[in-house]
């Protein structure tokens, strides 16, 4: 595990320069659809009267946009995208990658889920920032309009129903659940006092599992009437009034036998 966390600094040492490009959402969606080796387009870098001009041209095949409604694409993505170059500015931007060994899906995996330790590598430093802008064209305008229309649709809307809703609650004399409950109670009958020793055994085994018990839970477990149970409990246990475990019963110290305590009884 000593390798874990060790950053591979080859990129930094070589001072590999990279570009940080901001790309519109639709374009990145189109890029995700690229086939084959992933070629998406061409980047043209030219020098026009001393200024560098960079422009990206999207491949023809990727200009079709599948609209969400499934209809034939009405709009096509624009092809020309000039880049606006910017300086990195005050920040020092470095690029680091996280690789997870043992996973092969495209998404990679976060360090938490990787089967092996992640490799962190410094790929390089950003030397140029750019923004990919679509060239203003009819295509683009149409695309934008479509996007706006879609996003302006409310997520919740009112819908008229054909018939009245009948799945709501109808008045009932007594709920099924209640009937069952009462039946169960009747069967159980009143709780009878069992032998004291038996009750004690039950209690001790219960207290072995947990240290603190509510009186109700104990009644449930032992099926004894409350008063009787309380008497027995007063013998062997104490009642916590304050503290974190308030209103709970626990065994007296001498009866306890927990691992971090010493037993005396």
């Amino acid at each position, binding site marked *: 595990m000593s390798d874990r966390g060790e950053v591979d600094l080859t990129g930094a040492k070589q001072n590999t320069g990279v570009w940080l490009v*901001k790309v519109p959402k639709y374009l990145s969606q189109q890029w995700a659809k690229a086939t084959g080796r992933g070629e998406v387009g061409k*980047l043209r*870098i030219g020098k026009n009267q001393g200024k560098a001009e960079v422009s990206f041209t999207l491949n023809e095949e990727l200009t079709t946009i599948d609209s969400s409604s499934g209809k034939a694409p009405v709009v096509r993505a624009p092809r020309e995208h000039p880049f606006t170059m910017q300086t990195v500015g005050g920040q020092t931007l470095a690029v680091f*990658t*996280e690789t997870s060994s043992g996973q092969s899906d495209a998404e990679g995996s976060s360090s938490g889920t990787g089967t092996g330790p992640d490799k962190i590598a410094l790929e390089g430093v950003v030397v140029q920032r750019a923004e990919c802008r679509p060239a203003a064209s009819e295509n683009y305008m149409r695309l934008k309009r479509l996007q706006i229309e879609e996003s302006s649709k409310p997520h919740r809307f009112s819908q008229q129903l054909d018939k009245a809703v009948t799945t709501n609650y109808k008045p009932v004399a007594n709920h099924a659940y209640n009937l069952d409950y009462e039946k169960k109670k009747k069967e159980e009958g009143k709780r009878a006092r069992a032998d004291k020793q038996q009750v004690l055994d039950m209690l001790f085994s219960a207290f072995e599992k947990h240290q603190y018990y509510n009186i109700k*839970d104990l009644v449930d477990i032992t099926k004894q009437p409350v008063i009787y149970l309380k008497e027995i409990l007063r013998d062997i246990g104490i009642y916590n009034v304050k503290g974190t475990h308030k209103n709970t019963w626990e065994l007296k110290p001498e009866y306890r036998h927990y691992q971090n305590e010493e037993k005396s009884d």
Partner: protein
Amino acid sequence: MTSLGNSSSTGTEYIVRVPKNTSKRYNIMAFNAGDKVNCSTWTQARMERDMSNRRMYGEEETPEAGAGSEFGKKQREEARRKKYGIITKEFKVEDQPWLLKVNGKAGRRFKGLKKGGVTENASYYIFTQCADGAFEAFPVHGWYNFTPQAKHRTLTAEEAEEEWGRRNKVVNHFSIMLQRRLREQEHGEEEEEVAGEKGGKKKKKKGGKGGDLRIHDLEDDLEMSSDESDSSGGEDGEGKSKSKKDISSKAKAKKKKKRKGSDQEGLEDSDDGDFEGLEVDYMSDESSSEEEEPEKAKPNKGDDVPKGIDEASESEEESEEENKNEEEGKEEEEEEEGKKTPVQTEKKKKKEKESSGESDSSEDSDIEGETASALFMAKKRTPPKRGGRGSAGSSRTGSRPGTPSIDNAATSNTLRAAASKLEQGKRQAATSSSDTPAAKRLKMEPSSQSPSGKSTPQPASGKSTPSSSDVQLTEDAVRRYLIRKPMTTKDLLKKFQTKRTGLSSEQTVNVLAQILKKLNPERKNINDKMHFYLTE
């Protein structure tokens, strides 16, 4: 290249690829320009997620079974959460900050916090040029802003608050942290006791620093000078703690006075306090200040160089002599008011006797430093001790003029507490020590500030010669009070507490009424209360 007619433009075309199925996730590590981070200078780096937030979501303090567990706890907790609609956020490893350590242990450390909203509306891609000239674009998965982490020591919130309170007083800000460091060193060394000398020196230095810083703060701008004075002060401190000679105590007193003077010039200005010392003549040893003093002095001296003005003034007034006893007094404080150093007390008392003589003399602010401190030192000592001194003690206590009028409330509260304690001690001691003056003083209301010590005539009223420490309800005493400042009947009554005078409250009231009739003081309405005063 279909550039139209612009022959000057040349260009090259590159193919852009967006590789799929890459297991690498690209992230941005952003540093601020001001941090001057140059990645190429890094020789070695380690980075891992900061998992310190995990326990917030874990919440597994209670054991599930066995000891300490409750039956059905989990279900109850869950039901409770549902009832109140508490939704705890998941702990996502992806969103946790990074901890980056560069160049090993001695290098820099950075913390990288994830920046949100990067991938919401636009995607960032990293364009790298490959060997074949084509560009490869990788989407950026996350953006982390890395900030350097301070390796130097910083103040905690409480300490910062303290320092803030002192900001007007402290000129030499550089020494604040230095002091802290020395203090810590000292704590560490105390246990080890390794290089005794070194430790001793440091202690000295520390003590000196602690003590002197207080004094010199406003005088020395440079650390250097403070250092020098530190060493000398340190020696002083040491001497004091060891011998508690009059000289040292005097020096301390002087220092205290100096500090007091410098720090609380305003306080001294009030005329009110000028005559406070008058009555202290018969004030017994117990000055509530004593109790305060040990406390205050200790923090003063040693660790808490930062102190609010209130505290400072309190400690100053009450425990000028505290400084003398600081080293020892440190531990004692609330206890029997410095029982531990009876010897010194005695010494001080002696000194006080000599120096103070009559309480009146101590009025003088000039003498205040010396005598007051002396007195206070003595006062600090348990009343029983003072008991023997009797009048000397009483006179001593009185010499504390001009208790700063600033924190009357604070002081009086503490004074009262101390006073009551002193009273008890006195009771126990069963000496007719001059507790009363001091106690009375302490019990004085804020408005009255200075515990107006009373000359202590013999019990049973009447103007008898000041005996040991019982405050007597005499015309003289009342007159003195009223001359000094206007007082209400309530105030006067307070001064002549039944415990002190030995009279019952009824008797006190009667006697006081008689005296007032005799004196026939003038009346003035202050704050809707009738105050009496005499002008002579």
